[in-house]
């Protein structure tokens, strides 16, 4: 009895994956989920202020796309940004400490949940205003092209962002100026608490399909399988690298938690049954785990170890965050102006701050 191969497993970008690399993809997704669970717990315990947008259920979208990136490839996203941060290689400690508003946070406690950045890892945030990052993503692609670098920018956005004007301006310019940007719409079905049907005209035609109007190549596919995501995002990356042209990809996914923790998701705009159905039938971690067990790359025992290690790492990051100091009051005025921080002639001429 010939074993049927998993779809897209034979795509070149997937066929070349080693067993260790496959395990690492699994580990990253599990770490994201554990981090988010620890963050929710910390929020419930009143250790975190403001909003908290959790990525649980969508892990494959960030991990699949980001796993394909090379030296001159960049990432930018919106406010549901923890998964992308861990996927580019940011540490749980600095991410958790940021949520706690601590000095040891990735933005020194100045950005919070929605504003993670790691330019050294080609990660440009973490942006709070819906679709506000979509022109920036095109701008990063512009800079790559201007500086004659072969690279691209993966610009993630939610399905709610596609109705913002700035996104359409960015699409028009990306096409017009042939910018190597890949827009990835993480379509989890709901823009905040409003379903796709109630927020977007012609939803059944596909959100990515609007790219037709700008003569941009687009694709729409399910996001449960890492193999499929990697294969199709790679196609878009190739288009960026080889033709310097943009793409729009719409990846169907699902968030198990509310828009933010303050979102009463249970019975308002989607049913418990719907959430349960996705959790049992469409979980990207379970899907990848089953794939790897089927390939003989992973055992249940290995999986338990990965789970345990990720949970311990997440708990330790909360402990690290708890023990870290808050920023000093004097740091409020750091990181506002580059010239002031660097004590240049420009930064020391004239008055820059006007309190008191």
């Amino acid at each position, binding site marked *: 009895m010939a074993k049927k191969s998993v779809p897209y497993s034979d795509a070149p970008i997937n066929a070349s994956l080693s067993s260790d690399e496959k395990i690492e993809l699994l580990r990253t997704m599990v770490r994201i989920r554990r981090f988010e669970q620890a963050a929710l717990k910390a929020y419930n315990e009143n250790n975190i202020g403001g909003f908290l947008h959790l990525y649980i259920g969508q892990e494959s979208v960030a991990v699949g796309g980001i796993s394909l990136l090379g030296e001159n490839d960049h990432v930018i996203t919106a406010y549901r940004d923890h998964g992308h941060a861990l996927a580019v290689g940011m540490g749980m400690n600095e991410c958790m400490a940021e949520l706690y508003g601590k000095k040891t946070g990735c933005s020194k406690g100045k*950005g919070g949940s929605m504003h993670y950045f790691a330019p050294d890892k080609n990660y440009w945030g973490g942006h709070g205003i819906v679709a506000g990052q979509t022109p920036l993503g095109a*701008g990063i692609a512009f800079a790559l092209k*201007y500086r004659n670098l072969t690279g691209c920018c993966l610009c993630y956005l939610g399905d709610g962002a596609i109705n913002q004007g700035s996104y359409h301006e960015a699409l028009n*310019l990306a096409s017009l100026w042939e910018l190597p940007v890949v827009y990835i719409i993480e379509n989890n079905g709901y823009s905040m608490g409003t379903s796709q049907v109630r927020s977007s005209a012609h939803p059944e035609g596909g959100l990515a399909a609007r790219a037709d109007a700008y003569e941009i190549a687009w694709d729409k596919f399910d996001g449960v399988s890492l193999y499929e995501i990697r294969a199709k995002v790679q196609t878009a990356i190739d288009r960026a690298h080889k033709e310097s042209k943009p793409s729009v990809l719409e990846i169907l996914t699902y968030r198990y938690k509310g828009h933010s923790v303050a979102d009463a998701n249970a019975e308002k705009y989607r049913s418990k049954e719907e959430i349960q159905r996705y959790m049992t039938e469409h979980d990207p971690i379970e899907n990848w785990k089953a794939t790897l067990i089927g390939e003989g790359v992973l055992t249940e025992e290995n999986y338990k170890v990965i789970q345990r290690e990720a949970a311990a790492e997440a708990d330790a990051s909360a402990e690290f965050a708890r023990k870290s100091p808050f920023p000093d009051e004097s740091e409020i005025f750091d990181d506002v102006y580059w010239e002031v921080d660097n004590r240049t002639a*420009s930064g020391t001429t004239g008055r820059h701050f006007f309190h008191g």
Partner: protein
Amino acid sequence: MPREITYREALKEALDEELAHDENVVIIGEEVAEYNGAYKVTEGLWKKWGSKRLIDAPISEAGFIGIGIGASMLGVRPVMELMFYSFAYVAFDQMMNNAAAVRYMSGGLIHCPIVVRGPANGGTNVGATHSHTPENIFANMPGLKVVSPSHPIDAKGLLKSAIRDNDPVYFMESTVLYGTKGLVPSNDEIEGGELLIPLGKADVKREGTDISLIAHGRAVLTCLAAAEILESQHQISAEVVDLRSIRPLDEETIMASVRKTHRAIYVEENKPFCGIGAQISSMIMEQAFDDLDAPVLRIASADAPAIYSPPLEKMQLPVPEEVVARALTLF
């Protein structure tokens, strides 16, 4: 030899020199390249530097300003032109959140060396939508720098400094000033070989002893005319202080002038409510209270949207006669 050139030519010289100075400088805006600039500030530059360095953008301010900000995060130094600064309002999220706050929210990991320049003035009968003066709005946001030159020499020297600055600088010009002339030194007569005027330095455009007229942008010219009348008709010696740079602000020059004259009026073409004059007069009150011989006055645009009707719009903006009349109430 100092040459007499227009404000427009001074700006163009600055752009031309900075295009030569740094290959990462790129000029983007509506009709800046092939069209030669809506107000001809970039005239001839596309022909000289080509399509890589001067890029025509569609009417899409949120899009192209956002692209400029994104590119600046990755080492490009974009000089964006807004055909009118009034159009900043359709790019407001990009200019107020992304350019202004990304450095702060990233804990200092990112900076945006971008210049957004264009005319920010009324007085040309184009109605309320095209006559905005948002210098106070942008100066309100920490992380941004706001510059507003009044003379050709300042326009050139400040624009060059703005382009070399590593923070976002919003550079506000005036269509009314583009054709005004002034002396600008040529590079061979300047130590260092180029004209760089630092941000955060005010300039005393006229010395006086009895009252300080403080202003930015075109209102500086209004003050100079008023000072002439005060001198010739009323024997009042007015000092005229040109802020040039609004944020960072040269408070030392302002206070030194007030301590000398004991009277001050802030004149601007901005609207009065929370205008630049409100900030300056509050600072004078706090820092030089015991040096004041009269309350600080503010003269601004009449507090209504810019009116179209040409003769009335003239009355809406400060004129020298109004400055003189208000000044006389302080003696």
